[in-house]
């Protein structure tokens, strides 16, 4: 500590010139820090700019309606319709939400209200581990366990919306649980105590006081989980079969927008490549919309 004080006191030895140099150095450092703070904003602008500049011209040529609502994806013949993939992405996502949200809510209530501290600690670290497992490992597990299980015991080719929904449902759990749990924990104690003091049971307190109060956070949890599911690539591409046909049941194979990009980027060129960027643009805009909606609604509550 003494050396530190000595070096800070060195101003006296350098005199006025030293002080001027130091001031200039301070200003330079501040500018450098400002620049690094600007990187994330700059990155978003560049991402939007570069992806749209590759994708929008093709959408403009095909027409937004033609691109989004045509079933025919035949890049070699210049036919770019991603309707089957939009449906694929939505089907897999809502399938995942259908069981991931209730289970996530159950876990959030469990962790925030019911679990003994030790059990909660173990569960929390398990959820952290679930969040840490790479998506390609989830996909691999789905490929070797869930797809054959569906093929043998439920029917169809196994590669299906159902397989994707099962895997994605597990993958979005950490997102949903973490945000919903924090929202439930943030409910003021007095609300809970007041309700219990009035003679309400624990469960009545949870459903009528705590959940309604935590609603904005819970909605944010669901929306962010949805964003996660729509944007997931590697887990889905390994288990949904990737066929560009309109699915007729949850046992039918589908291709999602994300899979489309990862499957064809390796060899696509020219207009075909632009069409993949256009697919990415649609995906990106969708997720940007979801995230901004959450941010805006959070801000409105502040």
């Amino acid at each position, binding site marked *: 500590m003494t050396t530190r004080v000595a070096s800070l006191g060195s101003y006296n030895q350098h005199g006025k010139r030293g002080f001027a140099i130091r001031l200039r150095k301070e200003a330079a450092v501040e500018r450098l820090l400002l620049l690094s703070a600007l990187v994330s904003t700059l990155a978003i602008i560049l991402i939007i700019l570069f992806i749209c500049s590759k994708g929008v011209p093709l959408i403009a040529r095909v027409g937004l309606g033609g691109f989004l609502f045509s079933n025919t994806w035949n890049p070699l013949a210049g036919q770019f319709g991603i309707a089957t993939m939009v449906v694929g992405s939505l089907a897999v996502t809502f399938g995942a939400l259908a069981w991931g949200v209730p289970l996530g809510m159950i876990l959030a209530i469990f962790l925030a209200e019911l679990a003994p501290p030790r059990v909660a600690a173990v569960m929390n670290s398990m959820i952290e581990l679930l969040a840490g497992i*790479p998506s*390609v*490992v989830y996909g691999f597990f789905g490929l070797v366990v869930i797809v054959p299980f569906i093929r043998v015991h439920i029917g169809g080719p196994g590669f299906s919306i159902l397989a994707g929904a099962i895997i994605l449902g597990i993958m979005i759990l950490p997102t949903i649980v973490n945000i919903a749990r924090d929202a439930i924990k943030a409910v003021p104690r007095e609300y809970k105590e007041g309700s219990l003091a009035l003679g309400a049971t624990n469960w009545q307190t949870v459903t009528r006081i705590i959940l309604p109060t935590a609603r904005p956070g819970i909605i944010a949890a669901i929306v962010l989980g949805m964003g996660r599911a729509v*944007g997931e690539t590697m887990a889905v591409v390994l288990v949904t079969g990737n066929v560009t046909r309109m699915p007729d049941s949850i046992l039918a194979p589908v291709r999602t927008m994300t899979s489309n990009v990862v499957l064809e980027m390796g060899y696509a060129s020219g207009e075909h490549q632009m069409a993949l960027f256009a697919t990415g643009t649609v995906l990106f805009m969708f997720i940007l919309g979801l995230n901004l909606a959450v941010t805006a609604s959070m801000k409105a509550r502040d």
Partner: protein
Amino acid sequence: MKHLHSIRERIIYAIIWLGALFVALALLAIVGYVAVKGAGSISWAFLTEIPSRMGKEGGISSAIVGTLYLTVVAILISTPLGIGAAVYLTEYQPRRSRFTRMVEISAEVLAGIPSIVFGLFGFVFFVIFLGLGWSVLSGGLTLSLMILPTMIRTTQEAIAAVPAEFRENSLALGATRWQTVSRIVIPSAVPGIITGIILSVGRSVGETAAVLLTAGSALGIPILPTDPARSMAVHLYFLASEGISMERAYGTALLLIIMVFVINYLANLSRRRFSCRLKT
């Protein structure tokens, strides 16, 4: 009436406990299955040999090197940027300023962008526009943007936890702002920053789609930052999706899980240390 309630509540609580049990079992099933099937594949040769015949034979050494190389590059780029941004927001900007809000929203949006979109961006910007080609550098730069939000957030939290007296004492001794930040604030925040770095390593190691589109899928060992590389996650994708070698796929998946779990453990360790330090 009261009795009825308690029966209903018991059923509901039973369902909730079952839900928790289910998640625990799901995790055990995934990890256990991969561990049992993959344990036999992991050997010294598997770890040290270069894959041959597209990965059908040999080990995965080049993919391990590729993963580590990409991660190191990403961390080296992202750490100074993340610390710089966090320091600027917490030490140089008034609290809750519009600028801070803008950067925080940007970081949130950045964190929500799916990896495949990062992949597309990295491809068109780093690989094509900046001419870096499919390389460790392109992949690392793309990854650094993906982990930047985590870096900023954890560093911000760590810096916010540094007691105000530390700063006041330093300033009162005549230190300038940057002297205070660089010699007092950042050193006190180091444990928190390390937690952020460890979390980011975990994210980088598992990332697949973005790496595939920016670092390529070459099977050789990358030497220069401009060499193309294949990460373990990308290797696993090819092994599994093209059915090249399931045995090696299980081994690679197990190795990935082990790495992520170790990283997770380290992150928890450093986080606990960090909170202990603050208490004293």
